[in-house]
């Protein structure tokens, strides 16, 4: 039976009752967009498998669930967040811990880092930079067929704000750790905005951890504006327990001569769906989308990427890799769209997957849609297992079969990991992946939650 009408009616009730909750202390700018967004959500509904973008992803397990209506952080909640310490050694970053998408100290939370870069909550940003936020808020969201996108616009009340004014450079990456912590089952909608103005540079490391064994579902939108000649990197490390679902929608809008890269490392999570839109709106810009996922048990990990080549002379690459074990399933849905006048486009897309067990499953859909002629576009996708010849080669040199398999898998994953620009993190991820492949991490050795 279709579960969706019931969930939609529940969400409607929550939206209508919003005056007492999220509407009350949300910025006026957010409230202005809600009505239309919610109508869009009602029109589009919750995506099911008839939606091409969700053809291989079933949301039912996570959406059809009784979550607590709405989450409001209490000051005491942040104590847990303050205790959190990132275990990556030698990671030279500026660090901030968020709780369920909320910035500590709510309204006052907006700080300027050396070099003039602002980090803080959306609520505070709307107050401090009203016209700037208004100029960018909800501008880059693609009006597609996915109802979860307007749902976020309709319900979100806060999130992360990052602003690099013109020609500012912050040499250290900014690390945002988002902790999922609650004693109730919650459905989180957070809304982030990142503005990198002309000539500025910013690198963001976003980590997700779930620290309490409750059921979580996160539906996040991150809008990114990358101005002329600006540079922006985002690395996401997702490490959540099997009862948590993570759905992200990231919209990266690029002006001319800009550079952006996105790297999604999904180590763990019951359901993970990362959707990334790269919009190359100005000439001579460059964008990269990378992803690596390791799935086992009953996890489902999906990556959706769309690269829009609107302006000529742009380059893009996509590289996504996955290793699937047990009953896990993976999906890749990538599209390169070259618009009419985007001549001299150079676009590449690649998706490689390794299936380790009889019951794992991988579906991939790499697509090209090209309306300009002077382009070089190619894509490739493979699903298979480890190369027998390579295994034989290693074994003939005295490496036992188990070790040889690990080496090959690790080499396979490393191709994505080596794209990470922060060295300390790269080593750490290498280590995590190696542990994970050895099965040490997959049984949640390092996880406090012990969900199974």
């Amino acid at each position: 039976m279709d579960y969706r009408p019931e969930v939609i009616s529940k969400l409607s009730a929550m939206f209508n009752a919003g005056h007492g909750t999220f509407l009350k202390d949300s910025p006026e700018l957010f409230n202005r967009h809600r009505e239309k967004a919610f109508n869009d959500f009602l029109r589009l509904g919750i995506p099911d498998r008839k939606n091409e973008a969700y053809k291989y992803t079933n949301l039912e397990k996570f959406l059809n669930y009784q979550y607590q209506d709405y989450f409001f952080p209490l000051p005491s909640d942040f104590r847990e967040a303050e205790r959190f310490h990132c275990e990556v050694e030698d990671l030279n970053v500026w660090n901030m811990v968020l709780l369920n998408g909320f910035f500590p100290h709510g309204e006052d939370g907006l700080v300027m880092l050396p070099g003039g870069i602002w980090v803080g909550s959306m609520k505070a940003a709307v107050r401090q930079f009203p016209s700037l936020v208004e100029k960018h808020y909800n501008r880059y969201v693609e009006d597609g067929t996915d109802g979860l996108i307007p749902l976020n616009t309709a319900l979100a009340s806060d999130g992360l704000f990052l602003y690099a004014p013109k020609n500012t450079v912050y040499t250290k990456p900014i690390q945002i750790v988002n902790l999922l912590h609650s004693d109730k089952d919650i459905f989180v909608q957070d809304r982030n905005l990142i503005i990198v103005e002309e000539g500025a540079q910013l690198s963001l490391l976003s980590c997700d951890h779930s620290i309490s064994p409750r059921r979580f579902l996160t539906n996040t939108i991150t809008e990114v504006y990358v101005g002329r000649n600006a540079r922006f990197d985002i690395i996401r490390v997702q490490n959540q327990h099997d009862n948590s679902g993570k759905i992200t929608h990231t919209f990266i809008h690029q002006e001319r001569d800009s550079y952006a890269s996105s790297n999604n490392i999904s180590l763990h999570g019951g359901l993970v769906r990362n959707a990334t839109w790269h919009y190359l709106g100005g000439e001579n810009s460059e964008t990269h989308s990378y992803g690596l996922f390791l799935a086992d048990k009953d996890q489902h990990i999906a990556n959706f990427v769309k690269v829009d080549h609107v302006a000529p002379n742009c380059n893009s690459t996509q590289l996504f890799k996955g290793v699937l074990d047990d009953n896990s399933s993976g999906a890749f849905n990538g599209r390169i769209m070259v618009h009419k006048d985007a001549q001299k486009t150079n676009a590449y897309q690649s998706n490689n997957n390794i299936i380790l067990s009889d019951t794992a499953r991988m579906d991939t859909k790499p697509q090209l849609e090209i309306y300009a002629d002077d382009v070089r576009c190619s894509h490739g996708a493979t699903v298979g297992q480890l190369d027998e010849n390579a295994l034989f080669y290693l074994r003939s040199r005295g490496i036992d079969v188990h070790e040889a398999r690990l080496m090959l898998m690790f080499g396979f994953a490393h191709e994505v990991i080596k794209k990470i620009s922060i060295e300390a993190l790269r080593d750490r991820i290498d280590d995590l992946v190696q542990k994970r492949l050895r099965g040490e991490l997959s049984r949640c050795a390092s996880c406090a939650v012990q969900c199974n």
Partner: protein
Amino acid sequence: MENDQDKVLNEVTTGEYKYGFVTDIETDVIPKGLSEDVVRLISAKKEEPEWMLEFRLKAFRHWLTMKMPAWANLKIPEINYQDIIFYAAPRQKPAPGSLSEVDPQLIKTFDKLGIPLEEQKRLTGVAVDAVMDSISVKTTFRETLAELGIIFCSFSEAVREHPSLVQKYLASVVPYTDNFFATLNSAVFSDGSFCYIPKGVRCPMELSTYFRINTSNTGQFERTLLIADEESYVSYLEGCTAPMRDENQLHAAVVEIVAERGAEVKYSTVQNWYPGDRDGKGGILNFVTKRGMCKGDDSKISWTQVETGSAITWKYPSCILRGNNSTGEFYSVAVTNNYQQADTGTKMIHIGKNTKSTIVSKGISAGFGQNSYRGLVKVLGKAEGARNFSQCDSLLLGDKCGAHTFPYIEVDNPSAIVEHEATTSRIGEDQIFYCNQRGISTEDAIGLIVNGYAREVINKLPMEFAVEAQKLLQISLEGSVG
């Protein structure tokens, strides 16, 4: 140089459609429109047995519940099914026994198309079943084939003379509920070819069907059923043309192939329906369902297609690889020029163990053409050791056309190896320059490059067709430059 190239491109893309003439021949047509009565009328006209009528009605009733599919990357004009004549047949004496009894106008038509209906053209060594509008006109070489036990005749004859075979295999690969156009075809199909190769027989000649739409306002709905019994082999060709008309004409065909254990079927198509004029007016709407079932172990089905005609092509010749160690192949060249649109590709469904499939698709777009490859490779849980390789290349000639690739890969077995590769580009200026430098004109150079590009597929065609296909490519595109 750019200008030169544009000029050449223009010259080529304005090449006229050669087969656009109309034969003035008396035809038996039924009134326009579609209803249960029309389905009954078609069945009555063809003097069909009760079970055939039942099948049609079942399909028709199901069709009424269906909606036109909208997922393809095509802009399809509204089709008014009440404005189409669903049955038209050249009027002639019943069952022509020999060639002399066939209407000379008809023979002239097929002569003009270069189709050897006369059996003295034995040298060509091809057995032809010619279908005009809805009716099979003449099947050649039947007697020679009959000696080997091969049945090659029109579909209506098969219904009359081999009902048990037809009943056993009809809709066994493409069920009447399959899709909108296949269901429509099941309800109103008029004729087509039927072919049965008995056990262990290697068909000594190429079998061929030639389709021709002649009457205006008609839709052509033919149905081909090809059965290769154990350890047999057959190579089958199909060609099609239509007159030039301003309005769109609908063509919705179904082809079913069954390959039993160890059988091999090679099915080649050169599709050259009228593509519409330079401004995209008229042309055939080509909605075809083609599917082969590798039913037995070690069987093989190979599809080769050269698609140059039709205003809109919607076609996915597929293989269901059910038998262990069975093989499916798909080789395609699709050309879209002017305002033509094509959404074509294949489906390879791996069910049996150690099944293999190969997909090679070459798209060429020019003018305002839109060319999409859409394919599915599906490996089911039990398909141990399945192997697929797909390669889809697109060539763009001109800056107004589009080339798209939509592959779907679904893998449910860890021992499967599935690879997909695709590239999209235009002819490199360096390639043209290289040829120019050696005294080859730009026009010839492009012909050379396009033919080289499509060669991998054209090589798979039987000799007789390879020559035709190469010429067709040249007519469609020679000299165009991106």
